[in-house]
């Protein structure tokens, strides 16, 4: 089964910490974009490809009209064999949706919605330059529920300037009391060349207002505990869900399953190749959806990727599967639980199942996943 990813590269305003590809658009640009996008999907049409997830990400997909998003979804359904119980997600910004637009989305076939709420504290939202306040976020979630959505996700961010333990607990309490079934929680990373990065470089005192690594680690563990109490179980480094509400689309990324991406800078993994649509919005429209692909990997090292990606999941790595992928035996030390694995396990950074066939990162291990994974890959 394949996943379909649709990239909507527009935002009303770009958040200061964001370094993903998105632009501020206009109605004219939007309509040109939608027809180019629909073309690009139709160009790739292949009914032999079975898909069970469709994911509209961005940017902010909901800057487009619901009718536009629905028309894109229809193009997807016409071009691929999308199963009837497919998970169809749209990301949304609380202030770009209304009760009506949400109903339209639900009726148009979307059955999962993910809101970039980030925090329940307005001061923190404005520190992130988000356009919404918490009241709007709350309303958006309730409106989504009224519209019929039962699978609603919310983002929570740790490491916001001036965030405290108390304010984080407050955000978790308030957001989880909404009708949400999935939480994406991640730590703010100051990416180079973002406005936030420049702000901090200009004014070093801002750094001091972001909690240090030890404190952030504590907060992450605190959040894990709180979410668990509320019935949200961690299934991936930064994702938590009530049982049965795990994002099937996101799981594909970590389970090394295939997905096709459409739209500027959208990434695909198909037929053992990784590639992305290598053009900006204007060029994308000019080419009217004609693909312009750049390969990042034409012969994926499946064993390496499996280690790197599967360890992000709570279910972790299956040593039998690794052994099958790793024909040259480069990672036999992992398969055979050799010393390095034992040490990591002794330090409680990884868990090994009793039969020794499943290796996963512990809660503390998740926090240092890059270091652990790169250690295992070397």
């Amino acid at each position, binding site marked *: 089964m394949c*996943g379909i*990813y649709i*990239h909507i590269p527009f935002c009303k305003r770009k958040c200061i910490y964001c370094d*993903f590809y998105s632009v501020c658009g206009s109605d004219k640009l939007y309509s040109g974009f939608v027809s180019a996008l629909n073309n690009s999907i139709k160009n790739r049409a292949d009914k032999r490809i079975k898909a069970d997830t469709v*994911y509209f*990400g961005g940017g902010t997909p909901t800057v487009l009209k619901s009718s536009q998003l629905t028309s894109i979804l229809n193009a997807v359904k016409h071009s691929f064999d999308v199963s009837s119980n497919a998970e169809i997600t749209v990301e949304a910004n609380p202030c770009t949706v209304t009760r009506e637009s949400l109903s339209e989305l639900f009726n148009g076939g979307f059955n999962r919605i993910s809101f970039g709420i980030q925090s329940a504290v307005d001061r923190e939202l404005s520190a992130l330059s988000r356009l919404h306040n918490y009241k709007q976020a709350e309303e958006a979630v309730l409106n989504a529920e009224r519209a019929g959505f039962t699978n609603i996700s919310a*983002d929570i961010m740790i490491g916001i300037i001036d965030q405290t333990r108390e304010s984080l607990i407050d955000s978790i309490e308030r957001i989880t009391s909404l009708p949400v079934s999935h939480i*994406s929680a*991640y*730590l703010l*990373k100051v990416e180079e060349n973002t406005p936030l990065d420049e702000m901090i470089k200009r004014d070093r005192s801002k750094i001091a207002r972001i909690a240090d*690594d*030890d404190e*952030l*680690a504590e907060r*992450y563990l605190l959040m894990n505990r709180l979410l668990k109490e509320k019935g949200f179980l961690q299934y991936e*480094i*930064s994702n938590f869900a009530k049982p049965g509400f795990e994002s099937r689309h*996101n799981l*594909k*990324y970590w389970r090394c399953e295939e*997905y096709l*991406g459409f739209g500027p800078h*959208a*990434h*695909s*993994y198909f037929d053992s190749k*990784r590639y*992305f649509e290598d053009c900006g919005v204007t060029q994308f429209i000019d080419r009217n959806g004609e693909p312009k692909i750049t390969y*990042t990997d034409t012969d994926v090292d499946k064993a390496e*990727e499996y280690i*790197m*990606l599967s360890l992000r999941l709570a279910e972790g790595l299956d040593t039998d599967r690794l052994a099958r992928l790793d024909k040259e035996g480069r990672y036999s030390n992992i398969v055979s639980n050799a010393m390095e694995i034992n*040490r*990591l396990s002794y*330090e409680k*950074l990884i868990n090994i199942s009793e039969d020794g066939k499943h290796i996963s990162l512990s809660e*503390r291990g*998740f*926090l*240092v*996943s*890059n*270091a*652990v*994974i*790169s*250690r295992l*890959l*070397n």
Partner: protein
Amino acid sequence: MKKEQIRNFCIIAHIDHGKSTLADRILELTSSVELRDMEEQLLDNMDIERERGITIKARAVRLNYKAKNGETYVFNLIDTPGHVDFNYEVSRSLAACEGAILVVDASQGIEAQTLANTYLAIEHDLEVLPVVNKIDLPSADPQNACEEIENVIGIPALDAPRISAKMGTNIEEVLERVITDIPAPKGDDNAPLKALIFDSYYDQYKGVIIFVRVKEGTLKVGETIKMLATGAQFQTVEIGYMGATSLVPSGELKSGEVGYIAASIKDIGDTRVGDTVTSVEHPCSEPLEGYKKVNPMVYSGIYPTDGAKYPDLRDALEKLRLNDASLSFEPETSIALGFGFRCGFLGLLHMEIIAERLEREYNLDLITTAPSVIYKVTMTNGDVLYIDNPTNYPNPALIASAEEPVVSANILAPSEFVGNIMELCQDRRGTFKDMKYLDETRVELHYELPLNEIVYDFFDALKSRTRGYASFDYEMKGYQVSKLVKLDILLNGEVVDALSFIVHTDKAYARGRRICEKLKETIPRQLFEVPIQAAIGGKIIARETVKAMRKDVLAKCYGGDITRKKKLLEKQKEGKKKMRQLGSVEVPQEAFMSVLKLDE
């Protein structure tokens, strides 16, 4: 060319007092360099020299100057290194001259190095022509600088040319004074050949090029020459003089002239600075005075970060030695660092320069261990060992006595800092010798200091305690008996041999603690806790802990773009490359040098 029209001279100056700028102006004024070839600080033609504003190797250039009296003179300007590490090279450059221009910064006055080199010039009977530079600076006090020269050095200076090399002011006056004040060379063109080697370098096509000053006789192309100290013989292929931008063949060099010899020489070790060149057919009976073989003062281990680059490092060192006979090295192995070389240097600056050139010119990533001096250890059975690597320091039970090298140090500074300087020297186990007031505001302090106390960070410490005003110079004095111990550093319970060093008993505890603290700052947090310990014998005297890392990047993965994830892991891998894996601990390269910068 008549000898009366030749002037051989050098320029003595403290760093930044304007030696190279003055040299550039002189080159311009004698139109020796086309404007298009003119690059700032022409004589300093290594990148490092330009950047650091220092001269590492001596250079020489021949210039023609049409004087006010209508005659054209030949000037041989020999540039000298200013740093104490290269004292011997300085002395040989001076020996090639009849005079020296002493450049003093009108706002700073005389500095220790200038003083040392000026005394050296006077010792070699050079005529010293003082020049006061930087008169364009608002803080310039030329009158005071002149008085200081008279008081401190004792040479007349009130009529010293007052110039601004930067602005080109009064440069001609300097050139005229070179003619009137500095004597022409003497010598007999028909006497047996006696030429002094004052510099040499390796040219890919011509082999070693020797820079010489002919003292007696005539050097002719095709002649077979002999180096008196090394005994090596060569047939000269090319003889000439140093033009401003290239070598100019002239076929012969007569007494009093400065020039070069190319003789298809492969090994620079055959052409030692200070040696005498003579002719095999009519050899001179006595060599020129003052030749000595320079010995390294400081030793350090140099290792490639990537063990596979060991052969590359060996090639690079061999190539560098072609140009630098004072560099010595031999293979050594460290448990922590693998295969590398024990290298001997003239001093700390020399060491830094070599390390920098290896990294820059040969594109190597290196780990340099803390420098060590040579300890002289007398064993209970009467054997005497010279230890240049702390790892080889013998078991204390077998040592009858240990000695360490001491230097005689001269420090010049404004008098308000005397207290700070004395405190520093005391702390570095110095013995006070004497103190002299140069004038009301400046003093000269004379101390004896153990060399191992100054090879680390003495100069930096001195600068920071005197707001950068102090200058410092030293010369080797000899060995003195000392209470020494070997201090080991343990990471995660294991001794890291490359971090061991030898220290005076009284300072072992403080230094051990400080190094542990310093290592704690340099070693990044890792997945596991890392204990850092300092030990003497088996006894732990200090301990610090690098706490385990709690978190790394934990960002959202958008739209299946796992390339970002990969990049993060790549970055981690790159970072790892810059680290040295010691057991289970990753140690950054700087850690091995951190013991150097304890005074922070």
